[in-house]
């Protein structure tokens, strides 16, 4: 059980409290959802519950926080971790070992549990979570859903009574999210006290017993899940949808009279092409294993056309979405022909007309200020005339002007996402491909990204979205390219 009574917390070097006067309870056998816009204090609440505040993040805690009746102030984080398990948004952030089995037993072995007992617990949990087949695999070869199961398994082998989940659905596809929901239900029935902090709320319908909505460090609304079905509440607090339609099956197949990009009988053998190329050799030096979920990504005789507007690229994990995106940007070269605005185009030329926004914004930021970052992208494509005017224009389009002199790494998630999209558009590509642009973003920021994409689509760009975010698809996707349809020909 988690009990908060009149809890306030102020970080060191801050004048204001990050959370103020919080009081709530999470009973054994129940799930409490805490949600709110970015910066509302959810993360601090979570850190207080698992003892990171004040033991790890120096600060001042007032009020009473109890885990199973024991004050957290009187225990170290290590002691609390014997009762409380925390699952991070990105489970890879908490992995120490390379192998799944090594990782699951890591903390137990350090704590002095003998090897036999560790093995027994791992086997039991692996059976429970249906992940026995993953035990012999490398962490780096797992899909996001599989990584999360491993992280959850690692927590469960420690036999906690309380679980805290920090945005667990952020990186998951709808199917993995559904699976996670089922696992939470099971854990709840087994008597765990579960605290979930998340922007995405729809998947907790029927699971969350209580909902707390936060703003500016305070709990502003509390109730059951029905509270979140109120449009006014969601609008006021910048929340995502409580009920999300899965438009993946209903989006119309893309049909274009004036396509921007056409592919004719494009084929690509992932296995063969993975053996060559500079980075493949480099990866082999470090013996980096390939994804276990990846089937031989064979694309054979794919033909499609892409026009102006927003098209969702839909398919299960391992069906070749990323491979197709890489072919369309010219990063990989297969056989077959691409036509750009009716003209036959080589892979190296496709590179000049395509932009790609990867999921991890941190990989795409290199410079010291926001302004420099955009300027560098313009410089890279030789657009040095009227450089400052073009930088100003892009910053204004993406509402980045007040952030011009900020370091890109100091920006929030939503701000970074807008910046990397601005950078991708710096070279004015005809095709823009985005891979999970809204993972981890709250409702307001997700809508902002959707608006940006709609604006660009109206300007005549072909935008291809690879995303698990059903709300984003609902908001802006106009058409679909389905991998199973494309692969019908072989």
């Amino acid at each position, binding site marked *: 059980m988690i009990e908060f009574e009149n809890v306030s917390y102020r970080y060191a*070097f801050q004048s204001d409290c990050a959370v103020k006067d919080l009081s709530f309870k999470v009973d054994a056998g129940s799930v409490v959802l805490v949600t709110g816009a970015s910066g509302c204090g959810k993360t601090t609440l979570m850190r207080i519950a698992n003892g990171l505040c*004040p*033991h790890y993040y120096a600060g001042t805690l007032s009020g009473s926080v109890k885990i199973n009746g024991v004050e957290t*102030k*009187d*225990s*170290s984080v290590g002691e609390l971790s014997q009762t409380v398990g925390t699952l991070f948004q990105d489970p890879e952030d908490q992995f120490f070992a390379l192998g799944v089995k090594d990782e699951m037993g890591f903390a137990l072995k350090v704590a002095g549990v003998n090897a036999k007992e560790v093995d027994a617990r791992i086997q039991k949990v692996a059976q429970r979570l249906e992940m026995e087949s993953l035990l012999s695999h490398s962490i780096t070869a797992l899909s996001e859903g599989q990584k999360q199961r491993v992280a959850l398994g690692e927590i469960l082998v420690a036999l906690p009574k309380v679980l805290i989940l920090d945005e667990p659905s952020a990186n998951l596809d709808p199917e993995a999210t559904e699976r996670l929901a089922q696992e939470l239900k099971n854990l709840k029935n087994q008597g765990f006290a579960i605290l979930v902090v998340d922007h995405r709320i729809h998947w907790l319908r029927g699971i969350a017993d209580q909902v707390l909505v936060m703003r500016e460090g305070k709990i502003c609304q509390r109730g059951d899940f029905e509270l979140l079905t109120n449009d006014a509440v969601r609008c006021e607090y910048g929340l995502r949808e409580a009920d999300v339609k899965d438009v993946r099956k209903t989006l119309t197949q893309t049909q274009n009279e004036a396509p921007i990009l056409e592919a004719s009988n494009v084929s690509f053998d992932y296995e063969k092409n993975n053996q060559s190329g500079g980075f493949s050799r*480099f990866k082999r*030096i*470090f*013996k980096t294993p390939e994804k276990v979920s990846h089937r031989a990504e064979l694309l054979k005789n794919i033909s499609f056309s892409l026009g102006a507007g927003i098209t969702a690229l839909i398919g299960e994990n391992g069906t070749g979405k990323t491979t197709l995106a890489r072919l369309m940007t010219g990063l990989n070269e297969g056989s077959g022909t691409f036509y750009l605005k009716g003209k036959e185009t080589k892979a190296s030329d496709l590179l000049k007309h395509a932009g790609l926004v990867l999921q991890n914004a941190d990989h795409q930021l290199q410079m*010291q200020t926001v302004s420099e970052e955009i300027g560098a992208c313009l410089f890279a494509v030789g657009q040095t005339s009227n450089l400052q005017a073009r930088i100003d224009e892009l910053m204004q389009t993406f509402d980045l002007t007040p952030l011009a002199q900020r*370091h*890109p*790494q*100091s920006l929030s998630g939503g701000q970074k996402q807008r910046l990397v999209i601005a950078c991708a558009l710096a070279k004015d590509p005809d095709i823009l491909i985005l891979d999970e642009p809204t993972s981890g973003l709250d409702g307001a920021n997700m809508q902002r990204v959707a608006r940006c994409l709609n604006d660009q689509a109206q300007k005549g760009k072909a935008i291809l979205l690879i995303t698990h975010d059903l709300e984003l698809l609902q908001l802006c996707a106009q058409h679909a390219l389905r991998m199973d349809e494309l692969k019908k020909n072989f």
Partner: protein
Amino acid sequence: MMTNKLVKTAYWKSQELVTIGIFAAAIKLSSLLIALAGGGMNPVSLMLKNLVFSALLIVLLARVRKSGVLVVFTLVSTIVSALLLGSSITLLPAAIVGALCAEVGILMVGGAKKAWSPFVGVALYDLASKVFSLGVSYLMMRETPAMLVSVIPIIAIGYIGSLMGLYAGYRSLRELRHAGIVRS
């Protein structure tokens, strides 16, 4: 109010050791990448390799302000490199001696918590480990001392890179402060 239990606390915190491990990975990978991209004997890549090495090491010492970081880093890096990449273990004694010299140097300028200690530490570490590695090279090539003379320019170019890395480290720390990642 935190618990005041009488428990013997270890010198190292797990977070500090984790930071050392992660930076050791970043430093190893960077060196290898530059060597692969530019060629191992290319003067530009030699300097850059040492520049990046020194700059990253300065950031590490700025993050983990404790005596012994260089020794742990050297041991961990050498063992893992030997196991995984087949790096020569003959360089370990020279690197350890270099690390110890650097630790003593840091202590003499006021300890690991002083603002300049990362720069003093890395400068001494680079110099001492290169000098001692020359000693190891002499043992390997003592039948032909002339070969040692041909190695000296390579080491000298590398050390120039290390010195440039001290400035790069200073600029990196400034940028990290701008980004809000390093406070002091």
